[in-house]
């Protein structure tokens, strides 16, 4: 009898524990949208903002350093706002934010890449910023106009652009070029491939490539090489679905040119198992003579590389291609990323989120970024030029004469980019042909 009672007691305890457990589960489920939802916490006057970003503490990218400082300043200026920050590494972040989007569980403020903009807007996950920006013309007019265009979808501005990128710069070591007898950076494709052969013959890896994360070959090489062959009109036709195809001869030609580079041994043989940080390491060790990366690498190089490498590094863009439809003074670039606000925010939370985004994209941030060798989407007005690295000045001087062509992974849909990125790995090791890859990409584009 006693024992039966004890077991009943135990059962009772279990049921209570379970009820508590399942209640916890419910609360958690309900809590997540709540932080992103309209009902602000009633107990505390504090405004809680959740934020997802790529502002890693360990990053040497000057833009990240600058924005982290801005975030610190924002926290100091707004003691009543509590920011829960989740910082992730680039490719992880891209996955995470899409996963959150699928679950309709967006953070209050987040980084939005151009290629996701359409889908997020269609699913009503981002707040159009037109009205908010129009109320603050000083903020809006500070932006480089083309960056705002990059984030205008269906006539609505979906995010505040955070940067003005060029993704396809060639960083080359002039000392190595001089040593092997190349006095001037190649200005035609033929000269470029000859230079690759010469460097190879002298025992250098001509181009360091770290394509493990799959975006480097596409974003930093093909976006520009493709434009040299196809011209920007072709891309616009692709993007707006006006008849261009990935199987068109110029694009196949660009893929072939990339594969030919790989076939002649232009890249390190472990290109698909190292990442873009490791590609720079090859270059710092003077094993490689060049690498392709965007302007963010200027600040990384400035803080990571040995002094002699820093002194010998100069910038170039891909030479023109014979018979290509693209212009020679074009670099793939654009805003690519922006700060966006959750569509469900209202009241104080919305105001706090807007203030935060303004802080992260306004002129203060632009000045701070410039001092850290990075280009924000807003024109810097006042910064200490003595803090800037020589290579960054070289970049600014070069950039003045350049035009911008689209970055593939900032503009095309995820399915196309995934197929392209995976296919490029195959292409570079000879696992597929340019024609086949072009067809695969076209299939993904049509489906």
């Amino acid at each position, binding site marked *: 009898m006693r024992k039966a009672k004890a077991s009943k007691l135990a*059962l009772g305890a279990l049921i209570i524990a379970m009820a508590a457990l399942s209640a916890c589960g419910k609360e958690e489920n309900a809590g997540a949208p709540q932080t992103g939802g309209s009902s602000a916490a009633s107990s505390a006057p504090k405004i809680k903002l959740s934020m997802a970003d790529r502002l890693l503490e360990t990053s040497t990218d000057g833009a990240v350093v600058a924005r982290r400082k801005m975030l610190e300043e924002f926290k100091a200026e707004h003691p009543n706002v509590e920011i829960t920050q989740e910082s992730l590494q680039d490719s992880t972040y891209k996955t995470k934010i899409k996963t959150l989007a699928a679950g309709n569980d967006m953070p209050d403020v987040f980084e939005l890449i151009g290629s996701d903009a359409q889908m997020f807007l269609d699913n009503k996950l981002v707040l159009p910023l037109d009205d908010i920006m129009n109320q603050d013309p000083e903020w809006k007019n500070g932006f480089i106009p083309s960056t705002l265009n990059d984030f205008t979808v269906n006539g609505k501005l979906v995010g505040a652009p955070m940067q003005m990128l060029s993704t396809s710069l060639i960083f080359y070591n002039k000392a190595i070029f001089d040593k092997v007898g190349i006095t001037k950076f190649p200005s035609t494709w033929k000269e470029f491939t000859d230079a690759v052969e010469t460097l190879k013959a002298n025992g250098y890896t001509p181009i360091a490539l770290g394509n493990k994360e*799959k975006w480097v070959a596409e974003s930093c090489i093909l976006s520009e090489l493709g434009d040299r062959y196809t011209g920007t009109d072709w891309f616009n036709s692709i993007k707006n679905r006006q008849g261009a195809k990935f199987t068109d001869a110029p694009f196949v030609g660009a893929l072939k040119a990339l594969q030919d580079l790989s076939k002649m041994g232009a890249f390190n043989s472990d290109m*698909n198992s190292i990442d873009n940080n490791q590609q720079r390491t090859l270059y710092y060790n003077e094993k490689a003579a060049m690498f392709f990366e965007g302007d963010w690498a200027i600040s990384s190089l400035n803080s990571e590389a040995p002094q002699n490498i820093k002194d010998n590094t100069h910038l170039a863009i891909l030479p023109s291609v014979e018979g290509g439809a693209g212009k020679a003074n074009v670099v793939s670039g654009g805003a690519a990323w922006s700060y966006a606000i959750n569509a469900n925010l209202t009241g104080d939370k919305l105001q706090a989120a807007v203030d935060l985004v303004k802080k992260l994209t306004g002129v203060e941030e632009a000045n701070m970024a410039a001092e850290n060798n990075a280009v924000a989407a807003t024109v810097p007005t006042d910064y200490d030029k003595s803090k800037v690295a020589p290579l960054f000045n070289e970049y600014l001087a070069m950039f003045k004469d350049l035009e911008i062509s689209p970055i593939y992974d900032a503009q095309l849909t995820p399915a196309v980019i*995934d197929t392209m990125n995976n*296919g490029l790995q*195959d292409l570079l090791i000879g696992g597929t042909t340019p024609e086949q890859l072009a067809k695969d990409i076209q299939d*993904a584009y049509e489906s």
Partner: protein
Amino acid sequence: MNRLEKTLPRPKSTTIYGYLLPGTLIYVFIVLIPLGLSIYFSFFKWSGGLSKAFIGLRNYGDLIQDAKFWFSFRNNMIITVLSIIGQLGIAFVLAVILQAKWVRFREFHRTVLFLPVVLPAVVVGFIWNLIFSQDYGILNGLLRSLHLSSWIRPWLDDPHIVIYSVTVPIVWQWVGLYLIIFMAAIQSIPSDIYEGAEIDGATGFRKVIFITLPLMMDTLKVAVMLCIAGNMKIFDNIYVMTGGGPGMSSTVMAQYAYRTSFNQFKLGYGSAISIGMIVLSLTLILLSRRLMGGRTVER
């Protein structure tokens, strides 16, 4: 025995179900409901968000004709076969050796061999990435110092060998688990059988083949099943080491489902791939049970 049963109060069926409830609930929440949702989603063309289009069985029609899916299934099969041979084989040999009378520091060996099992797959992936590294890796360094430079390969970059390269860490990591299972099985074999065999003049090797192996057949079957189930859903090691690359060459089914769902954002088709994975895994497990079922030793 009988008397003991009588003195114990027989719990009411409500009590029994009460105790079962928590576990069942957790299982329902983390396995059955997601599974049901996956089946539901697999009938839709869905890119996340609010709009879904019902397309019936078309995702499954596509799946059957999807060469990439079957290629990744082939990769799973390679890993599974190598794991059954590698993990179970090595574990069995080690278990037999560790039972030998002359072995010292038995617990120490056991602990060291078991250690990789408790390491997170991400850590294992990174360690082996360093080992395989082209210029700085231990493996290539070792080959160079042994004057075997001609054996050096781009271990994670050559599409023909990458699937074997990524299998090595998987085998290495899980040997310890099966070792523990096998050691327990061997210890439960009564020692008088061995003593009898010794009197009859059986040597070490014959004892292993004719006594140890048949008497732990049931354990072996469970181990094979665990091994198949584990390798059909393998994902994390490979994701860290190669991301499924170069191209598709080291992509397994789980990775393909993940890529389809979260890189290409075809969540409906991704769900269909996951269901395909379950069907194939269950088929294989049933098949393996059928194949091994006939050889049960009668006690």
